[in-house]
C-alpha cells in the first residue's frame, strides 16, 4: 500500500464518491416513484394495466444493466438526427442523463417486483376490515395496503438500494466520471492496482454501510408501533432510533 498515492488521489476519489452518491440519491427516489404505480398496475385485474407494467418489469429485470446502458447511450447515439428532430437529443447527448434514466428504470423494475410481493403479502383481514369500514379503493391503498407493504418490503428494498449504489460503477463505461472511473484512471496511470482498488473498495464499503444504517433507522421507525416480545432485546437500530427521537 502506497499511502502517498492515497493522499494524492484523495480529492479526486472524493469527487468520484460524490458523483456515485448523487447518482444513487437521484435514481433511488426516481425508481421508487416508478415502482409503486408499476407494482399496483402489475396486480390489477385489468389486462390493459397489468400487461404494460409486466412488459416493463420483464425487460428491465431480464437484461443486464450494461446492455441497457450501451443501448441507450451508444445505441440511441446512432439516431441522433431523429432525436434532434424530436427535440430530445439534448437529453440523450448527456452521458449523465442517460445513466440516470437507465439506473432509475432498472431499479424501478426490481423495486416494483419487491413491492408486488409485499402488496400480495398484506393480510387479507386488513383489506376486508378496510372494506367493511367503507374505505374506497384509493383510501384503502393509501392508508392500509401501502403502509403495510412498505413494512414488509423494507429489508428487501434496503438490499436493492445497496445493490444499485454498487451498480452505479457500471456507468463509468458510458464515460461518466464516478468513483470507479476515477480509481481506474489512477490505477492505469500508476499501475498501483492494489493501493487504488483496496482504497476504493473501502470507500464503497463505507457508503454501503451508511445506506444500511440509514435504512435500518427508517425500518425501526416504520416498526415503532410493533410491541417487542417481553424478553426480546431491542435491536441496535431501535436503540439508535430511540436516542435520535428523544
Amino acid at each position, binding site marked *: 500500500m502506497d499511502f502517498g498515492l492515497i493522499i494524492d488521489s484523495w480529492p479526486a476519489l472524493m469527487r468520484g464518491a460524490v458523483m456515485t452518491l448523487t447518482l444513487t440519491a437521484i435514481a433511488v427516489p426516481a425508481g421508487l416513484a416508478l415502482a409503486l404505480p408499476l407494482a399496483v398496475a402489475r396486480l390489477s385485474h385489468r389486462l390493459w394495466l397489468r400487461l404494460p407494467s409486466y412488459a416493463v418489469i420483464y425487460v428491465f429485470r431480464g437484461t443486464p444493466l450494461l446492455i441497457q446502458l450501451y443501448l441507450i447511450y*451508444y445505441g440511441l*447515439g*446512432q439516431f*441522433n438526427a431523429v432525436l434532434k428532430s424530436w427535440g430530445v*437529443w439534448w437529453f440523450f*447527448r448527456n*452521458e449523465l442523463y442517460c445513466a440516470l434514466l437507465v439506473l432509475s428504470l432498472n431499479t424501478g423494475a426490481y423495486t416494483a417486483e419487491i413491492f408486488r410481493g409485499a402488496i400480495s403479502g398484506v393480510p387479507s383481514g386488513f383489506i376486508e376490515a378496510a372494506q367493511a369500514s367503507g374505505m374506497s379503493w384509493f383510501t384503502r391503498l393509501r392508508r392500509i395496503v401501502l403502509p403495510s407493504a412498505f413494512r414488509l418490503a423494507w429489508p428487501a428494498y434496503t438490499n436493492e438500494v445497496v445493490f444499485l449504489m454498487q451498480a452505479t460503477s457500471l456507468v463509468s*463505461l458510458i*464515460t461518466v466520471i464516478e468513483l470507479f*472511473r476515477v480509481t*481506474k*484512471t489512477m490505477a*492505469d*496511470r500508476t*499501475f498501483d*492496482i492494489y493501493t487504488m482498488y483496496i482504497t476504493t473498495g473501502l470507500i464503497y464499503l463505507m457508503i454501503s454501510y451508511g445506506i444500511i444504517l440509514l435504512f435500518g433507522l427508517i425500518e425501526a421507525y416504520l416498526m415503532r408501533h410493533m410491541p417487542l416480545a417481553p424478553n426480546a432485546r431491542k435491536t441496535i437500530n431501535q436503540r439508535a432510533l430511540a436516542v435520535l427521537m428523544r
Partner: protein
Amino acid sequence: MKKLVLMAFAAAMAFSFGAQAMEKMKVRMGTEGAYAPFNAVDKDGKLYGFDIDIGNAICAAANFECSWVTQNWDGIIPGLIAEKFDTIIASMSITEERKKKVDFTKKYYSTPARFVTADANKGVEITKANLKDKVIGVQEGTVSDHFVTDNFGDTAKIKRYEKQDQANLDLTSGRLDYVFADSVVLSDGFLKTPRGKGYGFVGPNYSDQKWFGEGIGIAVRKGEDKLREAINAAIAKIRADGTYAKIQAKYFDFDVYGD
C-alpha cells in the same frame, strides 16, 4: 530397489531435458484485439492486423512456438505481470511510466498522433484557447489520453472511452468535437470507413518523446532478457530480410517504421 528408482529417475530427467532442448520455446503473445488495423478481431473471432502479422513473423524468425491471448487494454500490463501471457504486442508506446513496470524491446514501428474532427471544424487552429470547452474523446490510459490530459485538460473537456471505436462512434453522434489518437488508427479504423465520411485530420503531427516515447515496442516482464534479446534479434532479422516490408505493404502505403 532404491538404486533402481534413482536410475529410473535419472533416466526420466535426462529424457525430459533432452526433449526440452529440442522443443521450441513456447511464447504466449498478448494483444488487445480492438485497435484496427494493428490488432483486431474479425467476424469469426480471429485475430488479424499489423501487430499480429509482425508477431507471427517474429515467432518464425526466432523459432518460437507462439499462441495468442487477447486482453482488454487496461488490464494488459497487469496481465503480463500475472503471467497470463509472456509478451505484449499491442501497439504499445514505450514510455518512462510503463518502463517502471515492464521491459521493452526496440521499437517495431512509430507513427504520430493527430486530432480528427468534422470537416466543418477544420478551419479552427488547434490551440489551448480554441479548444476551450470543446469535448475531446480519447481511449483511456493511452499515451494519447496522457498527452491531451496534460496539454489541453485544463480548458477542454476530455471524455475517456474503453475502446477507440466508442470514441469514434461518439464523434459521429455529435457528443464529441474531436477525437485524438494514433494517426494510422484514426485513418484506417475510422476515416477510411463509411462512417468517417465528412471527418478529417486537423492540426499537426504529435510525436513528442515526453508523452509518445521512443515508438511502439513489445513489452516483456522485467528481467526476461533472453526473450527480449531474442525478439530484438528477430525484429532486426525481419527488417533485413524483407519480411517487414512485405507485411507493411499489406496495410500501409507509407513507412511505418519511422526513422
